[in-house]
């Protein structure tokens, strides 16, 4: 993931600040994986959409029946008494009512398909991301990931709900209409069939070049939207720099340029629809001419067939038109899929670890034996044959400049990354043989900025152990001194926090994280610069709580030097280890 990022295939080559247009070399890229992904989706989607497609075809059948009644009624209008008017009118009405019912069912079915597809894709994507964990998602903006999980997947609903059923109906529906025409008059059926066959041919002819260009244009439009969104997000920055007017004009210039280019392409692209109009008109004229001879010769008998065939022409093209109306859904799906398949995937382990086991959660001893690790080959090794042993209940401080591997050691212990060489054992068991859930159960972590989700203070603390008793919760709240500020709030521990909730200060948030760790009562405590974001006075308070939390636990603390002085224990200076090229414990 990291590698692909630095090589930069994801780098969006957007429209430049001053309205210059850069063509993207990346545009031609990744068409095939996207295409094959979409194809696979469509294959699965067709099966699920079979009822919807069937209902649509039933609608076509009813339409044919209705047209039959209408054509006979018309004939009766022209020559009164030539047909049973009441019966035909009732037939017409029944078919109409049934078609109306079908519309309701079809609409519901389309919604159901779109919803089911999005639910399936979202749960698979989220599940995948959660399995991957933060290690492989490093460098990915979580807002960007959330946009994929929410917006891109929303954009895939139309493919399943509308495009797939419409494509099925467009394939079979016209054939059914042509067959009905052929039964009344085989020549008319043939005319419709030929017109139908000409549709894809003419589309291919006018579509050569425009397909690619239209896709590129669609991408360019989407980029304009992205650019606009970006500028709006940063509008405060633009205004403060006094560049609002210049930026507004640049936006207008780019949009105008894009409009001109788009229209140039649409001029050709709209020919597709025009060809369909022309074919429909040609089919009408051809059928009219075919019947002109016999009718003028006084063959009244062929009048109903003539009217029937003529009225079938619009019905023949209706499914094709409906299909081109949902073309946008497919385009949208393709761009959304591009972002979706670029997400890192959970590697499927060829073979499960030999013997998965659990280790006693009482006292945790950590041993690193010649551990080497690199996030990627370009950036070189972060840890080079690192060895140390940390007995249960002791504390170790990791010090060193940023980039020296402090956080990496924590990531390795959390199981979010795996060493390329060497061995990490927890209570004697190699870490990769421990069930992830068991490893999670024995570990608590507090980072620079604790993660607080939208919910109450209590819910956030209970993240550590949802089933904890009321007394245990009270105890954790007391030990972490959450009560100090929570008691002053009108709703106490039930105060909502996170998005849209009560704004906590950095120190208060950190206390909630500490309470969480107290409640969880894990024997291994990992601390990653827990007070870096705090002012000195608050740091003092939080430090006291952390010291209390550390008692009786194995603690690994990554921090700057001054803070580490507060703890007693071993110290591992990673900067020194690195420059000396040594391994071992200082």
């Amino acid at each position, binding site marked *: 993931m990291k590698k692909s990022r630095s090589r930069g295939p994801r780098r969006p080559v957007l429209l430049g600040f001053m309205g210059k247009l850069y063509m993207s070399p990346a545009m031609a890229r990744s068409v095939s994986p996207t295409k094959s992904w979409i194809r696979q989706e469509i294959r699965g989607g067709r099966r699920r959409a079979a009822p919807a497609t069937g209902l649509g075809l039933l609608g076509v059948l009813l339409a044919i029946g209705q047209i039959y009644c209408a054509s006979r009624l018309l004939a009766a209008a022209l020559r009164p008494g030539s047909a049973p008017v009441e019966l035909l009118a009732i037939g017409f009405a029944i078919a109409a009512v049934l078609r109306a019912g079908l519309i*309701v069912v079809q609409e519901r079915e389309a919604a159901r398909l779109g919803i089911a597809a999005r639910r399936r894709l979202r749960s698979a994507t989220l599940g995948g991301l*959660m399995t991957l964990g933060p290690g492989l998602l490093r460098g990915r903006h979580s807002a960007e990931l959330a946009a994929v999980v929410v917006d891109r997947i929303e954009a895939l609903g139309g493919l399943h709900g509308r495009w797939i059923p419409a494509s099925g109906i467009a394939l079979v529906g016209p054939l059914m209409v042509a067959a009905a025409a052929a039964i009344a008059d085989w020549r008319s059926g043939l005319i419709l069939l030929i017109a139908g066959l000409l549709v894809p041919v003419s589309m291919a002819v006018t579509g050569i070049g425009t397909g690619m260009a239209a896709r590129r244009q669609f991408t360019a439009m989407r980029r304009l939207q*992205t650019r606009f969104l*970006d500028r709006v997000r940063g509008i405060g920055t633009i205004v*403060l720099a006094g560049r609002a007017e210049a930026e507004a004009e640049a936006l207008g210039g780019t949009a*105008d340029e894009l409009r001109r280019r788009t229209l140039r392409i649409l001029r050709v692209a709209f020919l597709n629809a025009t060809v369909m109009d022309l074919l429909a008109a040609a089919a009408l004229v051809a059928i009219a001419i075919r019947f002109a001879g016999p009718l003028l010769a006084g063959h009244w008998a062929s009048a109903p067939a003539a009217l029937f065939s003529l009225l079938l022409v619009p019905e023949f093209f209706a499914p094709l038109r409906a299909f081109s109306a949902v073309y946008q859904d497919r385009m949208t799906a393709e761009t959304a899929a591009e972002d979706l398949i670029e997400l890192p995937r959970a590697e499927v382990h060829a073979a499960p670890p030999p013997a998965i086991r659990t280790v006693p959660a009482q006292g945790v001893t950590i041993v690193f034996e010649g551990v080497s690790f690199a996030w990627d080959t370009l950036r070189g090794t972060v840890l080079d044959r690192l060895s140390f042993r940390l007995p249960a209940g002791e504390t170790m401080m990791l010090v060193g400049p940023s980039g020296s591997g402090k956080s990496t050691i924590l990531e390795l212990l959390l199981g979010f990354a795996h060493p390329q060489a060497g061995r990490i054992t927890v209570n004697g068991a190699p870490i990769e043989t421990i069930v992830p859930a068991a490893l999670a159960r024995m570990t608590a972590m507090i980072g620079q900025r604790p993660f607080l989700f939208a919910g109450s203070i209590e819910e956030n603390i209970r993240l550590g152990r949802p089933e904890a008793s009321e007394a245990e919760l009270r105890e954790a709240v007391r030990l972490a001194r959450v009560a100090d500020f929570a008691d002053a709030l009108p709703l106490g521990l039930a105060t909502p926090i996170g998005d849209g909730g009560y704004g906590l200060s950095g120190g208060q948030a950190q206390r909630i994280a500490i309470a969480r760790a107290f409640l969880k009562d894990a024997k291994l405590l990992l601390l990653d610069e827990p007070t870096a974001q705090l002012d000195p006075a608050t740091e003092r308070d939080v430090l006291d709580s952390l010291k209390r939390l550390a008692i009786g636990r194995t603690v690994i603390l990554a921090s700057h030097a001054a803070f580490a002085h507060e703890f007693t224990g071993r110290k591992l200076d990673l900067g020194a280890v690195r420059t000396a090229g040594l391994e071992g414990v200082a």
Partner: protein
Amino acid sequence: MNRARPILRIIGLWRAQRAALAAGVIVALAALAAGVALMAGAGRYIAAATLGIGLAVPAALEALGVARVALRYFERLVTHDATFRALTALRIWFFRGLARSAAGGLGYRRAGDVLARLVNDIEALDGIFLRILVPGFGALMLIPVLLFVVGREDAAAAAIVLALFALIAFLFPWRAMGAARRSAEAEAQAGGALRVAALDALSGLREVKVYGAEGRMLAAIQAQESRLFGAERMLAARAGAMQAVSFLAAQAALLAVLLIHGARPVAIVIAVFVAIAAFEAVGAMPRAGVIAGRASAAATRVLEAAEAPPRVADPASPAAMPVAHGLSFDEVTFRWSATLPPVFDGLSLQVPAGSRIAVLGPSGAGKSTLAALALKLAEPEAGEIRLGGVDIARLNAADVRTRVAWLSQATHLFADTVRNNLLLARPDASEAELWAALDAARIGDVVRALPDRLDAWVGEQGVLFSGGQGRRLALARTLLSPAPVLILDEPCSGLDIETEREFMSTLNETLAGRTVLLIAHRLTGVEKFDRIWRMQNGRVIAATR
């Protein structure tokens, strides 16, 4: 009328695009007229032929057929052109409005999420012209046509047909619009909640995994998703019902025409064909009503955001800009809103020109508010803020901002090149000046190592750079600004201690001659400041020299 007003307001904004829009409507009406005439002609020809009195296909019919196809083509082209123009105009109007009204409020204080939703709202307005206005005019044109063609054969049938036509073209869309407007609100809320839940789970992934809460987070997301889908399903059901009723109404109208017993069979057939064309033209109107409902909800939000009054109004006749640029706060009282306690209550501070001043204190002490006030993003309730001795209330905000540059916590990196991100602060900066700023912010070497150097792309939200690097790039931009007063809000967040020390120790040379107000929660000990203030609860509680 409430539901239509926001849309009418949006249409009112398209004054400059009037010609393009009118052209679109005219071509569309011509295409529709040609279509209806073609159907009438075809009906007449077929009826005559069936009765054995027909002629060869008349030339007029051929011409109509060609005209219809050609006009349909031009209709698509012209209406799309008009839509693009209208949407572009709308975007720029929105951007200008937001810049005027919300630089202080929305842009600086509210989450990017709200802004993203607003941008989506603008996109939702693109159907107003193409799918509401154009077919609406078409429907109006068809009324007299139907009245004439059907009415001359049978007045009662004409009454039925017109009543059903009005239902489909006007009443159903109007009802659909109201319903969609209401459910759009529910949908927007559910969508927002889903986004929050997803962002929660993903940004807290580390802790979610450490605390084994994957299942619970997933369930929380799916609960929000179900709410969204529920709202959607309801809307789909309603739209389906509306569509079905419209279809039935159209079929009933057709049957009414088919059953006319008249003396002129050819005219009846013509009426049937015209009715088919007319009802086909308005078949999509109820669905357009749903679009209109969503657009109406979106337009309300967009108008509200773009037309909000600026938080700080410019003076009617601004005073001349002062030459000096010493900054002083004199007995300033300020609160963000009437319901909140004051951030400052009689705060007085002096920031002499060229001085180096640090403001320390815990978060929430009002450090950033100081900057917001100095930049006229907010206005004091009482007291004065002076720049070079002149009360900034008497100066234009834009002029004040040429003198004071601010690296805020919310400073945005644009999805653009490094160069363009920097040039925002000073469009005429030379290459050497760009590099000097990058080096001063301790990011020059990182940029130098990139294959495209200054032309390297800062991804969406600057994701190509790590958080700390992005912060340093923003710092470089602020340092590049020609403003004589710099307010740096936590410039070193994301830097490690050593780099921070290095930056601080060279700050004096880098910014020689400029006033620097540094906001931080702690100092490293190497800084050389003229004064260090500590703020707590909106007051300066200690000043060291």
